[in-house]
């Protein structure tokens, strides 16, 4: 919980991971390359005083995550963006099973995303149904650039992807987080494309598509499609971390999003553990768009907009009644610990 302009903001971190990037879990050199690349992102944008050692970064205990998010990080709830990468990591990187460890312990604090991959084919329908039956899956995280059996990626418009989206409808899963950000091994122009989200969002108007990393480095393309489809949302992970060391770019990105997408469709995300939410959120609540940018775009990052971005928008997507949820959270072990500390 943190205050914005004197009013309490309910914070949902829209993008977190509980990963295992330790050397024991590296399946091959790609696993090492992956976690080192993540660590470069971490050190590139994290202020010195908040940087972790590489060892800490590879694998962190559940207690650390709870402290970084809830006890010290101003976060009330968080959305697990499960990432599988089984071709790089023996046990997967942060599968829904791995993330469930924390969801199980603190059920009201976390929203757990599962996933599907159209390349599983029809044979995967049963696996998907079983995942939804056995785990409290409330949303999905799709990673269209993931390697699988020699394939280097897929599109939301693939006919088999549509079959899975239909299954989501049937099973009542409404929120689809799609990784459209820095890609792994993009071989063709398609890998830079966010237009498959556009088509799918038009064809499934009852589902919500949260474009994680706002399509960076394809922000401009993302802005056009999000303007057209009301069920497309901007997930701020990666962009939010610009706020400390590259504040001007952060301001320009926010101005574009506020202008094209609007304050009702932007979701905060830290991408924990690449970045910890505490410093991002503290900077964000005090952040002002520079006057020249306000004038140029005719937008402002008001306290109301900040509260929507920090949590109200995500709460709406996941049907969370904030007042009721706050009361519930005050009673869980983390809420009690916070009350004692206060």
């Amino acid at each position: 919980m943190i205050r914005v302009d004197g009013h309490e903001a309910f914070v949902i971190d829209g993008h977190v991971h509980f990963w295992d990037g330790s050397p024991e879990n590296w399946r091959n050199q790609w696993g090492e390359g992956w976690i080192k690349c993540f660590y470069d992102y971490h050190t590139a944008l994290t202020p010195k005083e908040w940087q972790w050692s590489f060892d800490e970064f590879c694998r962190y205990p559940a207690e650390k995550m709870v402290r970084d998010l809830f006890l010290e990080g101003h976060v009330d709830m968080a959305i697990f963006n499960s990432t599988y990468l089984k071709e790089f990591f023996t046990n997967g990187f942060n599968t829904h099973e791995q993330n469930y460890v924390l969801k199980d312990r603190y059920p009201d604090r976390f929203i757990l995303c599962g996933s599907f991959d159209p390349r599983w084919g029809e044979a995967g329908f049963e696996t998907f149904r079983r995942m939804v039956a056995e785990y409290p899956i409330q949303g999905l995280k799709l990673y269209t650039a993931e390697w699988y059996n020699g394939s280097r990626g897929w599109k939301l418009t693939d006919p088999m992807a549509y079959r899975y989206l239909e299954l989501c409808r049937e099973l009542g899963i409404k929120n689809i987080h799609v990784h459209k950000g820095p890609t792994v091994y993009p071989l063709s122009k398609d890998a830079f494309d966010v237009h498959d989200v556009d088509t799918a969002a038009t064809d499934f108007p009852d589902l919500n598509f949260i474009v994680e990393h706002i399509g960076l480095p394809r922000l401009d393309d993302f802005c056009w499609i999000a303007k057209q489809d009301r069920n497309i949302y901007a997930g701020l992970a990666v962009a939010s971390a610009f706020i400390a060391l590259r504040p001007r770019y952060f301001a320009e990105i926010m101005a574009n999003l506020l202008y094209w997408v609007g304050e009702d469709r932007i979701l905060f995300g830290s991408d924990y553990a690449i970045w910890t939410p505490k410093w991002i959120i503290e900077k964000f609540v005090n952040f002002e768009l520079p006057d020249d940018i306000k004038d140029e775009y005719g937008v402002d990052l008001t306290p109301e907009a900040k509260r929507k971005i920090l949590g109200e928008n995500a709460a709406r997507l996941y049907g969370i009644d904030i007042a009721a949820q706050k009361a519930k959270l005050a009673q869980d072990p983390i809420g009690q610990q916070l009350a004692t500390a206060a």
Partner: protein
Amino acid sequence: MPPSVAQIWQELDQVLDPELDQSITRLGFVTEATVQGSTVLVRLRLPTYWCSPNFAYLMADDARRRLERLPGVEQVLVTLEDHFAAEAITHGVNARCAFSTIFPGEATDDLEDLRRFFLRKGFLSRQLVMVQALRHAGLDDAALCALRLRDLRHAAGQYWVDDQGEPRWVRPARAVERYLTRRREVIGDDGPEAWLLVDLDGRPLCPDRLPGYLRQIRATVVNLRASAALCEALLASRQQWGAITVKEAVQ
């Protein structure tokens, strides 16, 4: 006579990261450029281990082609280091293989489409800078939309527009040159009567829709600059892994 190292760097200055529309030397991607007899050796290091192999190939291949054209050069060896596809790309570029043959079954031969896609984005971003330079020179939107190429005068490294006998200086000259170069590549038609400012379909811009048009371009420019800033920060971060071992280009 073999070329000097300064000449090598000059050529490398001309090689662009297609996505960021900036020189690979400015971006810090060139870690080494040396001449040994008639052989030129170049090493490239990109901001991440996972940078797109297609862009990596385009940059390495552009570097090779440019340097091979220099008098006194018989062989160019480009090494891509510390990249998940380093070996394949290093070998492929030096053996002059097409991209699609380096990654058989995984890549289509659409690199020209890819290059064109980003040339068009680069055109837009350079155009925004050009418009800002013209506005700064004191031209209003109606005046700058009415300009034809012949109206942009050029002498002694300076550009100006005549305003009733008074020169309106358009600065910096580098911004003008960057725009004109890309305009030629993307739009073609650059006769004296052609419009200076055109959209991607070659149609002249009109003052009424200029603000909306520029706002769209602005998102493209913000995207480019934010991506470049991220790449710069990532490249700096990579230094933390210390010296790296890579396979040398096949001699």
